[in-house]
């Protein structure tokens, strides 16, 4: 019999034993409603054909492909958090591994759904196995995706095993029959003896080592689907690493959102602390720096060489039809990095300066909005028209930029004190920004092939419904999973507690006199 720590039992096990409450059914009903609408739309598309989407010639790939690349990117979080941090023995990972790994599995499942939406004959999917062609990047992608899904489900299950046994052994007397059945079957006879623990640790370490190259390969191969074609703008050697970096970046962003939501709903504030946001925040900052580096490199080379086929693709992003999505992406990423970096740089005494207050920030942002509106919207009075010669307009734009900067600076102290809120805002910015990035990689290139006239692309109601329903599927999977299994890995947290208490007993010996002398000789005092 395995015993759970009483506080863990109250927080994590008891809500699982309790039957689903009103909130659960309400959330499930809403999500199922959205999914039902999506199912109707999907059958419509299946029955009539892909003509129901907004795709056209030359835009043979639309929002489904964007979603696919985006979702497999989001799923990179689990690989990184649980495998990479597990291998580097980063102790703080423990309470968030479960959420990260489930995000990987569910993200991948919903991503593979996008492929089913996208292909014209989903009934012939088995042809990839029966008649597969080795040279095709899509075959590599299908293989890599399958291996990644299986490995990540396996990794999630391995990490769950001791917790399922804990659930089995602590079942209350009035537990339902299916609960007993489920946890008994799934725990595979886990007793928690030394041999089993040793084997589990070995297995987890092996899977953690394996899953990193598998994860990296999936994102790289997905980029190869694009970069192995002849299309201008995709033929890029750095697209592989760029996708991997973007994937980790959006994965952390999504993780921020999901872990906050889960901890708010399930009241896990005791487990998921500010420290986790803080440490993940550093990873986030590193990835944002890498992302800016890759984006700059990717676009600078195109801008500098001005090749006759590739430059128009870049131009359409910079000032053409895709300017809104491109600059929107840049703005979101800048905001996300700014609110993560600047609060970390501010000294804590800065609140004494009056401008570092939210009110001041709101005032600056409001002024910037009014000024921006005056520049952008039609000139109402002759006086305004008189003022709108180029130099004034430029000056006004500079002023808008400065006001926004000051708004950002003033809000920074508030952000410094609300780490979780800051992380969620930054995460949301990055998740949406990365979706736009995938859009900016796929759509501008595909609209401008060599011998087909330019045609833009507008997703239809079918595509938008299926996208929203996919997100609803993701939500439903989380809802059901965290109703059945603990959202925090209980055994890992316990292990962490044991290590902590053991470490607190270790005494760090003072340096020996001989050592102090040698330091003093080099100019160190005391």
């Amino acid at each position, binding site marked *: 019999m395995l015993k759970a720590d009483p506080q863990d039992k109250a927080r994590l096990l008891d809500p699982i034993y309790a039957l689903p409450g009103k909130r659960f059914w309400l959330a499930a009903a809403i999500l199922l409603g959205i999914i039902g609408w999506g199912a109707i739309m999907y059958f419509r598309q299946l029955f*009539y*054909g*892909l*003509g129901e989407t907004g*795709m*056209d*010639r*030359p835009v*043979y*790939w639309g929002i489904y492909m964007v979603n696919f690349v985006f979702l497999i990117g989001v799923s990179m979080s689990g690989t990184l958090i649980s495998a990479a941090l597990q291998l580097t023995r980063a102790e703080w990972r423990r309470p968030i591994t479960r959420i990260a790994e489930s995000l990987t599995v569910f993200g991948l499942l919903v991503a593979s759904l996008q492929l089913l939406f*996208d*292909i*014209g*004959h*989903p009934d*012939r*999917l088995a*042809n*990839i196995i*029966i*008649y*597969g*062609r080795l*040279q*095709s*990047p*899509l*075959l590599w992608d*299908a293989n890599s995706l399958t291996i990644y899904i299986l490995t990540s489900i396996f990794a999630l299950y391995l990490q769950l095993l001791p917790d399922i046994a804990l659930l089995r052994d602590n079942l209350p007397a009035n537990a339902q029959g299916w609960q007993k059945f489920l946890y008994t079957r799934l725990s595979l006879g886990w007793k928690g003896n030394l041999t089993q623990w040793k084997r589990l640790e070995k297995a987890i370490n092996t899977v953690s080592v394996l899953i990193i190259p598998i994860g990296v390969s999936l994102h790289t191969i997905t980029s190869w*689907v694009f970069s*192995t*074609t*002849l*299309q201008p703008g995709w033929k890029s050697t750095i697209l592989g690493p760029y996708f991997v970096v973007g994937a980790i970046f959006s994965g952390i962003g999504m993780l921020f959102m999901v872990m906050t939501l889960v901890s708010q709903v399930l009241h896990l504030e005791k487990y998921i602390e500010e420290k986790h946001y803080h440490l993940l925040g550093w990873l986030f900052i590193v990835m944002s720096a890498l992302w800016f580096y890759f984006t700059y490199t990717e676009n600078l080379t195109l801008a500098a060489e001005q090749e006759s086929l590739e430059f128009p693709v870049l131009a359409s992003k910079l000032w053409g039809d895709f300017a809104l999505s491109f600059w929107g992406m840049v703005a979101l990423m800048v905001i996300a990095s700014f609110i993560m970096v600047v609060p970390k740089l501010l000294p804590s005494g800065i609140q004494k300066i009056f401008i570092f207050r939210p009110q001041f920030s709101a005032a600056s942002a409001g002024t910037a909005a009014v000024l921006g509106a005056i520049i952008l919207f039609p000139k109402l009075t002759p006086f305004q028209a008189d003022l709108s010669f180029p130099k004034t307009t430029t000056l006004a734009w500079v002023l808008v930029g400065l006001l926004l900067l000051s708004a950002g600076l003033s809000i920074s102290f508030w952000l410094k004190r609300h780490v979780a809120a800051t992380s969620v805002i930054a995460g949301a910015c990055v998740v949406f920004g990365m979706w736009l990035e995938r859009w900016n990689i796929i759509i501008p290139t*595909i609209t401008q*092939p*060599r*011998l*087909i*006239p*330019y*045609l833009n692309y507008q997703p239809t109601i079918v595509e938008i419904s299926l996208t929203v329903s996919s997100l609803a599927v993701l939500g439903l999977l989380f809802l059901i999973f965290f109703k059945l299994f603990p959202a925090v890995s209980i055994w890992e947290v316990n292990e962490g507690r044991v290590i902590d208490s053991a470490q607190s007993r270790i005494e760090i010996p003072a340096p020996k006199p001989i050592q102090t002398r040698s330091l003093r000789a080099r100019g160190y005092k005391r």
Partner: protein
Amino acid sequence: MPRWGMVIDLDKCVACQGCSVACRFENNTPAVNPGEAVKGRAIRWNDVFQIPVDPAENTGVYPNVTTRYISRPCMHCENPACIKVCPVQATYKDEEGLVRVNYQRCIGCRLCTVACPYGVRYFNWYAPQWEGSLAEHLNPDRIEGAGDLEGPSIRPKGVVEKCTFCLQRLKKAHAQADAEKRSFRADEYIPACVQTCPGKARFFGDLDNPSSSVSQLQKSERAFLLLEEAGTRPQVIYLREG
């Protein structure tokens, strides 16, 4: 075994689009309604279009216009970009150098349509439909076998199709030769677009035979390949104007 190739003399081409129409009727490509055509969903295995293709590009004011027209069948490349990317081998190259598509196997992933630099591959967004009497005059030729559906056979929705150099005509010519118990000659078969061309701008034949018209013409100093820089080595050769 012949290696089929086509030569299109742009000096003789008047852009009448007769080739497009002949192709449509020979190969049962469905017509689409105007709303669909605006979305570029019209299927034209042999397309006649302006060069440069971008309507925003300045092509001059009459009479000093620089617009040219080009007629474009499938290039049946020697190194096709489409075949390499097909995950199910639904598109493949046969021993006579033709790039073929098996509609029965295609999963409709559209990677080949994206990969082809010439834009010769078309996707069936909807099931094909023919209005009125058009439906009664479909080409009855079919190329169908165990797990194979090719050529002018009616395509289901959700698959990719493209110019086959009128594969059914080649099959018929082969069958004829076999029935007459003689060997097949390369001049026994031409595609519908070549047969119909009123300006006699199109030539078709065996590129491996040094005395064929296409072999002779491809040595012309006017000869050029479309998007030669793409490295696909097309087997359709153009003769420059002037």
